[in-house]
């Protein structure tokens, strides 16, 4: 590394003034940390399949043409949800719901909060230590333009989903940071969607910091359905207190690169962490899922199910790590990753990793890679379905059970519609 001129140093200086809290020391701290770490190379296991080499260009990107964005947004909005729309990485109130008026919910944007809240600022410069895998979190902190700050009071039961919609991202790099905290016993549903949101060769870098207090529950859905040549990287850091529950579902169906990373840690006993997702890829797409659930305390459960369908030269990655610390007795952790390759040239990389230090635990994992079953295809064809339809139905059937983890039928349909769009099923 060139100490005199770290990667992006000039661009950081140039971009700072236009970012909220522009000259704040925390931005500099975050950037210094990024500069020290550098972009993770593909020699790092967690980044082995994600190439960041294309990121080394211009981070600022071209100005946007707002035409067409507004109408596309209307189709993405979930009826009855609270909508927060971010265009080009900036909250747009005219396109969004009112942020106040829901009991127990404090909803703000990061851009309007950073100047006056030290606690928030502390959170942005995450203490990631010297781990080079954290570099993009640091870069996100240095260049963050906006995000949602969602806080539910103790006992608040949010019936309306909160939906974050990303749109109109230019070429270059857009950094969004969402900070979500659920008070004791609170429940909420968070939906993020980036559908045709990012310009060709553009990068969207999202960091979610999620804090689920005692007995609270967060359902978190992410739809990564960006345009064919876009890159979407997301990292969710989840902390689960006693008896807290976090249920996450991610659809990775768009973009040249869709990367979904979740790191969850139990900070109390009796919690549950459910991570699930579906990766769909064609062309040369990469669908990269990295999870780490840290069973630091006893009597917690986790369940993971990820399925991928890759066509052409697409490749999927599942690196699922579960750590069961020495004290974490009576942990129950299951994990599965199943893959179907529609072409001989497609690839599935599956790497379950269980690190267990306790002795009274139940841990199971399973991984499979296969093709569509010739017997099934033949059977369907003898019922009059042409081969393409039969293949679509089988793929749909293969991923169908993953959607079942989404309890709300309307949200399940919403997410499934995006998968069906990819599959070409009407």
């Amino acid at each position, binding site marked *: 590394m060139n100490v005199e001129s770290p990667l992006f140093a000039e661009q950081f200086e140039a971009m700072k003034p236009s970012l909220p809290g522009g000259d704040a020391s925390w931005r500099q701290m975050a950037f210094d940390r990024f500069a020290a770490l550098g972009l993770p190379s593909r020699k790092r296991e967690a980044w082995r399949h994600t190439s960041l080499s294309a990121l080394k260009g211009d981070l600022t990107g071209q100005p946007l043409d707002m035409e067409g964005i507004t109408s596309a947004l209307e189709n993405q909005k979930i009826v009855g949800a609270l909508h927060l729309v971010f265009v080009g990485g900036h909250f747009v109130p005219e396109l969004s719901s009112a942020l106040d008026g829901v009991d127990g919910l404090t909803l703000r944007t990061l851009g309007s909060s950073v100047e006056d809240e030290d606690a928030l600022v502390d959170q942005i410069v995450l203490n990631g230590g010297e781990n080079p895998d954290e570099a993009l979190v640091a870069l996100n902190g240095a260049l963050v333009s906006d995000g949602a700050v969602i806080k539910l009071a103790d006992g608040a039961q949010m019936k309306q989903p909160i939906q974050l919609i990303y749109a109109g991202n230019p070429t270059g790099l857009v950094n969004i940071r969402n900070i979500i905290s659920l008070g004791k016993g609170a429940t909420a549903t968070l939906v993020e969607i980036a559908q045709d949101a990012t310009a060709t060769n553009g990068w969207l870098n999202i960091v979610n910091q999620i804090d689920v207090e005692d007995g609270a529950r967060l359902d978190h859905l992410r739809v990564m359905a960006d345009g064919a040549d876009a890159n979407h990287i997301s990292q969710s850091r989840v902390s689960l207190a006693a008896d807290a529950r976090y249920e996450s579902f991610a659809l990775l169906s768009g973009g040249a690169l869709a990367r979904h990373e979740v790191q969850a840690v139990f900070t109390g006993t009796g919690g549950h962490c459910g991570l699930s997702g579906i990766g769909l890829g064609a062309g040369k797409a990469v669908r990269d899922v990295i999870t780490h659930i840290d069973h630091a305390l006893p009597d917690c459960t986790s369940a993971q199910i990820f399925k991928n369908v890759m066509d052409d030269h697409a490749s999927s990655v599942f690196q699922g790590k579960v750590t069961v610390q020495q004290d974490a007795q009576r942990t129950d952790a299951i994990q599965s990753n199943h893959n179907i390759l529609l072409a001989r040239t497609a690839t599935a990389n599956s790497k379950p990793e269980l690190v267990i230090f306790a002795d009274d635990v139940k841990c199971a994992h399973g991984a499979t890679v296969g093709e569509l079953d010739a017997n099934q295809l033949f*059977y369907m*064809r003898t019922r*009059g*379905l042409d081969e393409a339809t039969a293949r679509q139905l*089988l793929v749909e*059937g293969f991923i169908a*059970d993953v959607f079942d983890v989404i309890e709300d039928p309307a949200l399940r349909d919403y997410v499934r519609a995006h998968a069906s769009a990819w599959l070409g099923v009407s």
Partner: protein
Amino acid sequence: MLEIKNIHATVGGNAILKGINLTVNGGEVHAIMGPNGAGKSTLGNVLAGRDGYDVTAGSVTYRGQDLLDMAPDARARDGLFMGFQYPVELPGVNGMTFLRMAANAVRGHRGLEPLDGMDFLKLLKTKMAELEMDDALLKRSVNVGFSGGEKKRNEIIQMAIMDPHLMILDETDSGLDIDALKLVSQGINLMRGEDKAIVMITHYQRLLDYVKPDFVHVLVDGRFVDSGGPELALKLEREGYAAYGVHEAA
């Protein structure tokens, strides 16, 4: 309806069918019986168009067309129905959706409008009443976790909804208890008609008590060695295939 002329077929390089001739006309019910390994299922698979079954000689004409030149789905859309000995499980594929797609595939080929959800349900209700079955099976994934009998019933439901011209039923009676056998047989009998033909492939005579065939053919070692009326099936039941030089283990 169907004219099979001197077909020879190999599976994995092994000659299984060694010159089969069969003519099936509308309104007829044929039973093909034979010991294990005679080539009964191979004949069914050849007619349905499964990959890996190579016809090396002979021809099959179905409703005036070269059947062997048609893709499996084209055969199905044109009214050839294969009832399987072991129906395949389709995890995650909803039974109702699958059945409607199958019905509409056939309807499209016949120049009929596709049925929407409501119209399909009406048709289904009528058919299920005729079959004296309920549609509980259709709310699940196709054949997944079904008992042997349920799988066979599901085949009969598909057959009734697709309304085929020619039905090839491979060991449809295997694995059925007596009540299920009656129900399935009733479903087959409902399909009989002047413009329809049924070919039942079976090891045992049992099914033929309920679905009376017009012709019985005995298949041994890839050839028909005998043909006759229903009485031939009764004779086979009594005497086995010994008369044809076959000695089956009990």
